[in-house]
């Protein structure tokens, strides 16, 4: 991992080279806050909502959104985690990976409003796999999608209900999301081939 961003001066978004920081820690905090409000607004209070974070970085994001929602509304929101490795369509191409835990809240998913949470929405294949996984686990009333970053280039007819930030990218670039829980700091970087 190239987390040389600390040494690198942070240029404006879209600058060449490593690590243009497109979101910093306060930005991420504001985005999480806004998504929490939007979920509450759309679901009219958080009754029946289950937040399901996609491993790995969707899980801390889901926990943060749940904590924010609890602060705002005063009721706790169940959070779970989902590992979609066994549902990926690229196992033949990329080989096996270690599995992360899938933990469901005790309430289960049946007849719930499930909000999937992930860090980056790109091809949409991860979300496709997550939808397949959910249908094997239970039958939610609705499934919605919240992402921190939508970078475009969809390969499937999938869109997010709650988007932290739209970041137009070229497919040669990559988006790195770092979170305190997994990487020690909060930031979103845009790296690679700007041409």
């Amino acid at each position, binding site marked *: 991992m190239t987390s040389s961003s600390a040494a690198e001066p942070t240029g404006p978004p879209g600058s060449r080279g490593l690590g243009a920081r497109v979101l910093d820690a306060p930005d991420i905090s504001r985005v999480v806050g806004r998504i929490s409000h939007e979920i509450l607004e759309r679901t009219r209070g958080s009754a029946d909502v289950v937040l399901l974070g996609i491993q790995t*970085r969707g899980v801390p994001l889901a926990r943060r959104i749940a904590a924010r929602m609890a602060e705002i509304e005063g009721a706790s929101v169940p959070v779970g985690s989902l*590992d979609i490795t*066994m*549902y990926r369509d690229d*196992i*033949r*191409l*990329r*080989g*096996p990976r*270690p*599995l*992360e*835990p*899938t933990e469901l809240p005790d309430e289960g998913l049946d007849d719930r409003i499930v909000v999937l949470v992930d*860090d*980056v929405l*790109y*091809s*949409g*294949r*991860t979300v496709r796999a997550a939808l*397949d996984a959910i249908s*094997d*686990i*239970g039958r939610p009333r609705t499934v919605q999608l919240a992402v921190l970053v939508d970078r475009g280039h969809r390969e499937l007819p999938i869109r997010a209900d709650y988007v932290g930030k739209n970041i137009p990218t070229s497919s040669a670039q*990559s*988006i*790195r*999301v770092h979170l305190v829980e997994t990487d020690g700091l909060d930031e979103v970087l845009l790296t690679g081939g700007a041409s």
Partner: protein
Amino acid sequence: MRHLLSTSDLTRDEALLILDTAAELGRVTDRAVKKLPTLRGRTVVNLFFEDSTRTRISFEAAAKRLSADVITFSAKGSSVSKGESLKDTALTLEAMGADAVVVRHHASGAPYRLAHSGWVGCSVVNAGDGTHEHPTQALLDAFTLREHLRELEGRRVVIVGDVLHSRVARSNVALLSTLGAQVTLVAPPTLLPVGVDTWPCAVSYDLDAALEGADAVMMLRVQNERMNAAYFPSTHEYSRRYGLDTRRAALLADGAIVLHPGPMNRGMEISADVADGPRSVIVEQVTNGVSVRMAVLYLVLGARAEDSAGEASAAEAVSA
């Protein structure tokens, strides 16, 4: 990991990856839909030249839970009984497009031959060869031990019985010592193989002393079908000196468990009240067997993909 032929091929990290993967996959059993789409469209052939019930069924269940197609081939009622060689059987399977072959054979080394002869291009998983190895059994034993004892480092495991003919014992000694456990073999001198002193374990002839404070005991089946020579004077004497009964089970440490790879000879190597007692995890072993074999099939078939994809997979993973 393209093939799984022997537990001595496994590094500590590989063994832990299999066990951790098995722990996650085992939870599929608790769900409403007990199936994962991971190996959809892949073919797993169960090639059994020797009788087996639980291993064959366990592999079959594991492959089906991962959505693979399963073809079961037993030597009885097949061309093998007409004298077809391993090579010709292998070529037939290759021609049918098998992605993985799970093989049990009465000759030690048959899976190795299958994997390295160039007869077949698919992955080979050893399901027991002669008196050599039975790696998935050792993995499920280690999995069961880990569920009950958490960490295996420094734990004392006693393996009792017919070590000479036991592929389970061989695989377990290699795997458990890789995982840091201290293994003690207990058997009559006639049932210990030549060269056992070079294995990474201790050897004892005194069961009571070995059981004192041990964290787990694994009873091996007395393999009557391989006993064409007299290895001990009488079954009664064997069971008195090397059988596990209630008195001996009480010597174990608190929280210790009793394992048996099955099928059991009740009253011979293990008494019925121990086999059905609170320390016994023999039924759990069967459940864990399916999880472990799912993990092995997933990792072995996935690794094939990795080889063929080559540098494509070297491109850094981009969050999608």
